[in-house]
């Protein structure tokens, strides 16, 4: 009597009921006035909230006097698994600690592991919350201390965002 089971549609009806229920729920709430039943973020217009520990792009920090906090201990350069950081030590007038004359960051190879921040004993670098890092030009990934692509502000590469 096994073939009689083929006439029992409960298995397919159960699935249809579930998908129908989801369809109904989303159909009536698919606008921004209602609490959404769907699980998508409408990305460029609405951005998801990032966790406080989010690992974005590497950024250098200045202290209250506008002075770069980095003292060229080279810990980040050593720990970096992909060797994307290059620091050249230098001196600056009126500053006891060494001062980085160059701090080069090759973002195209960066894997955002946060080892550099962890190794930094002076809290002079962080990973910020910027995740829109795509760009048309490879050169834009080479970040330094000067120029439009610098290590202190968010990079200008988030130019694909169309949010107004």
């Amino acid at each position, binding site marked *: 009597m096994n*073939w009689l089971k*083929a006439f029992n549609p409960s298995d*397919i009806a159960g*699935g*249809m009921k579930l*998908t*129908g229920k*989801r*369809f109904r*729920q*989303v*159909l009536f709430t*698919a*606008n*921004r*006035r*209602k609490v959404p*039943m*769907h*699980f*998508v973020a*409408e990305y*460029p*217009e609405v951005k998801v909230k990032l966790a406080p520990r989010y690992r974005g792009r590497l950024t250098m920090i200045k202290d209250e006097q506008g002075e770069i906090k980095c003292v060229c201990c080279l810990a980040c350069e050593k720990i970096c698994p992909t060797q994307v950081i290059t620091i050249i030590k230098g001196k600056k007038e009126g500053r006891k600690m060494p001062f980085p004359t160059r701090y080069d960051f090759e973002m195209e190879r960066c894997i955002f592991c946060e080892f550099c921040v962890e190794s930094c004993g002076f809290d002079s670098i962080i990973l910020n919350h910027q995740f829109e890092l795509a760009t048309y030009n490879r050169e834009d990934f080479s970040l330094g201390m000067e120029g439009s692509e610098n290590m202190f502000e968010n990079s200008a590469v988030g130019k694909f965002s*169309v949010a*107004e």
Partner: protein
Amino acid sequence: MPMTLTQTVVMALIQIVVLLAVIMAVVPIITFAERKVIGYVQVRLGATRIAGGHVGITGPINRAMWALGRVPVFSILRGLPIFMADGLKLLTKEDVIPEKADKLVFILAPAICMVPAFAVFAAITFFPGAEGLFTFPASFPIVGGLKFMGFLTDINVGLLYILGVASVGVYGIVLGGWASNSKYPLLGGLRSAAQIVSYEVPLSMSLLVPVLLVGSLSFRELSVKLATEMPLVAAVPLFLGFFFYLTCGFAETNRVPFDLAEAETELVSGFHTEYTGMKMGFFFLAEYANMIVVSAIAAAFFLGGHYLLPFGLQSQLIHALGAGHALNQPSILFFVGKVGFLLFVFLWIRATLPRYRYDQLMHVGWKFLIPVTLVNLFIAAAIKFVWM
């Protein structure tokens, strides 16, 4: 009023143009509905914007659609312009013909697939009433004062014509798969050939139930009499036949759970892997037009067509309330609503069910559907013999 030859020709041309325009408009809307329905079922939003962002030509459209996202009911319509974008994309894509392909057959195949899918509509009755949908005003040149009927032709072998012409479409798929001279399309084409040949049989057999009950092959006569002149017991074979027919219809149109010819995760895209641009668009048009045909036949024969109640139950209502009652009047809205619901079922099923394997599909067709449709036919014959 007898029509002159000129009037007949002009009238037919008008009807053909209107019909084609409606199909061409409905098919893209179904593709849009497919995105939306499957999106909503999968707790996401489906298409809400068109490519290009908030700048340039697409800027105002996208901004308007973003604003529409706040409006409660109409937010479903977000992304509607995507069907125009789809069409534009297909038209402007580069038309690649593989070097080793059989060029003539490769070009012919989409047409062979699409022309029958559209030709089938000639025999479908959208509204059976003799008063037609509307009357042209007398001031109209040539066709002034004539009625615009709800069907193109009403040939007395309409159903045979539909079955015959619709099955020509499979040649397009097989030839397209073969002419591509590629391995996945070949497998897809062969699967499709075997599948459609097998499912023709139970499909015709399940359609024989209404034919037997009415004793006619004319689409219009069938759809009217099935709704209005059936005894109560006839609902049994019609009810069962509806599900058997729909199953076979899914297989005939290559839709999930029988989409083996395309089977994205197995055969990449099946028979149309090598097709680009509007040639692929033709295959799509044919598939969606076939969906409309299958839904229209199911709605007309099994779901009561232009009347309110399905499975011939309308005749009981006519007995109870009299033919003049408001609930017993035919309306094209009932028909359109039923076709629309069935098209929704197509998409709903697609979002829910997995896909059969090739041998299991054959198994279902030959070992299950053919016997049960035969039994159903026997029930219908018994009813015809005893009650009618």
